[in-house]
């Protein structure tokens, strides 16, 4: 007997069966891969933080440390130097690594009185200290994020790493490229009087090699104005949130 696929009852049963089958398949896939994906994300975060303080693959200075060494190197250079900064006060805590910057931002949006917890990592390499701050902002299409390493006087950037979720390849997605992020190294985040300025991604900067490090500006990416503005805002607002803590520390 031929199957009558045009009957309403058949259509409904088919739709329900399809939803159940696809839902089960996706749920099974997601739950069986969840732990591997979480481990990969943790490793990536460690690689990003190490990269910001200049610890890279020994064979390729433009690449992250190998995934299998990330945990050991993170313990070596950062270890338990992880802090949660709240309202200008820092508290040492191993939970700093697990703070999700986006979630904290969402909680502030829901409740303006909520005291945002901000993670801070202090790395030590060759006797120098790196204060690594995680950042999060908006690009043209989706979220952008990154890490900047500040010097111990909190006046200049010593390393940066930016990433994105869905910026246009070849345009906004170039914020991950070395030629863009390397411009931030050595760039001052304060003006000559010592006031906090951040760093602006500037069009027509007439300084393509970024020789001037005290102009608080780096050269923009062609065809990616909005993503560049997103990076500017992300650094300006992200680092600003730590200003009270930095001031307390200096005084």
């Amino acid at each position, binding site marked *: 007997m031929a*199957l009558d*696929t*045009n009957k309403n009852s*058949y*259509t409904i049963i*088919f*739709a329900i069966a*399809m939803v159940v089958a*696809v839902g089960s*398949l*996706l749920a099974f*896939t*997601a739950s069986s*891969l969840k732990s*591997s*994906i979480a481990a*990969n994300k943790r*490793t*990536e975060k460690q690689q990003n933080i190490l990269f910001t303080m200049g610890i890279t693959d020994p064979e390729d200075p433009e690449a992250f440390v190998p*995934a299998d060494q990330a945990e050991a190197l993170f313990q070596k250079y950062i270890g338990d130097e992880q802090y949660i900064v709240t309202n200008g006060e820092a508290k040492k805590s191993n939970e700093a690594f697990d703070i999700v910057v986006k979630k904290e931002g969402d909680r502030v949006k829901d409740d303006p009185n909520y005291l945002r917890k901000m993670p801070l990592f202090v790395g030590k390499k060759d006797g120098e200290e790196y204060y690594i701050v995680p950042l999060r902002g908006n690009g043209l299409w989706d979220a952008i994020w990154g890490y900047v390493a500040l010097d111990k006087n909190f006046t200049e950037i010593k390393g940066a790493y930016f*990433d994105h*979720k*869905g*910026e*246009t*390849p*070849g*345009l906004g*997605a170039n914020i991950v490229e070395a030629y863009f992020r390397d411009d931030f190294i050595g760039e001052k985040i304060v003006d000559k009087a010592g006031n906090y300025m951040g760093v602006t991604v500037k069009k027509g900067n007439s300084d*393509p*090699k970024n020789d001037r490090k005290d102009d608080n500006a780096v050269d923009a990416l*062609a*065809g990616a104005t909005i993503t560049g503005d997103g990076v500017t805002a992300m650094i300006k607002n992200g680092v600003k949130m730590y200003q009270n803590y930095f001031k307390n520390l200096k005084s």
Partner: protein
Amino acid sequence: MAEVAEQEVVKVKETKEPLFSKKNKKLLSDPLTDNNPITIQVLGICSALAITAQLKPSIVMSISVIFVLGIGNVVISLMRNIIPSKIRIIVQLIVVATLVIIVDQVLQAFAYSLSKELSVFIGLIITNCIIMGRFEAFALGNGPWKSFLDGVGNAAGYGVILIIVAFFRELLGAGTLFGIKVLGDPIEKTGLYALGYENNGFMVLAPMALITVGILIWIQRSRNPALIEEH
């Protein structure tokens, strides 16, 4: 009666088409040239605009679409007799979305760095009209093997154009191929740049993808006037 039935079975076996018959080969090769989904059917233009500023993502996108369209066409073809016609478009969308999510999850678990490079394209695959077009026009009316060949052929045809467009856009727009500076250094003024050559910044912007596709369509039709439609 049994004898007749046996004869029929033998007959069916005799007339079975070989896997790579002339007709089946055409399913693979036609979309590469005279029935190309981008230059002839003018489908899949959105992703051609979005991701062809560089060669590497274009290749990655092409491979992903070959996978999703190849498997998706087989799945739709296997289900073709039981899909209710009223909800067939929704069913097709579910199949492509499921495949895309599974590919994304598996990559995130086992090839994380690759998945990061792919993430934006994986999402874009769902919006690719070639995929829905092939499900609707071919897989719903043909067997799984033919559908597989048609899917792979069309996705490869799409990929070829993507790669050609990306080659010119990356080379002329940024002076690089696969991110490697092939024309010299534009800041240090070495290689071609020492002679006064400048990168064409317009090439990295989306409109130039459309113009490049237009030029390809023009070249293809002027070489083969049979492709020009008469109105």
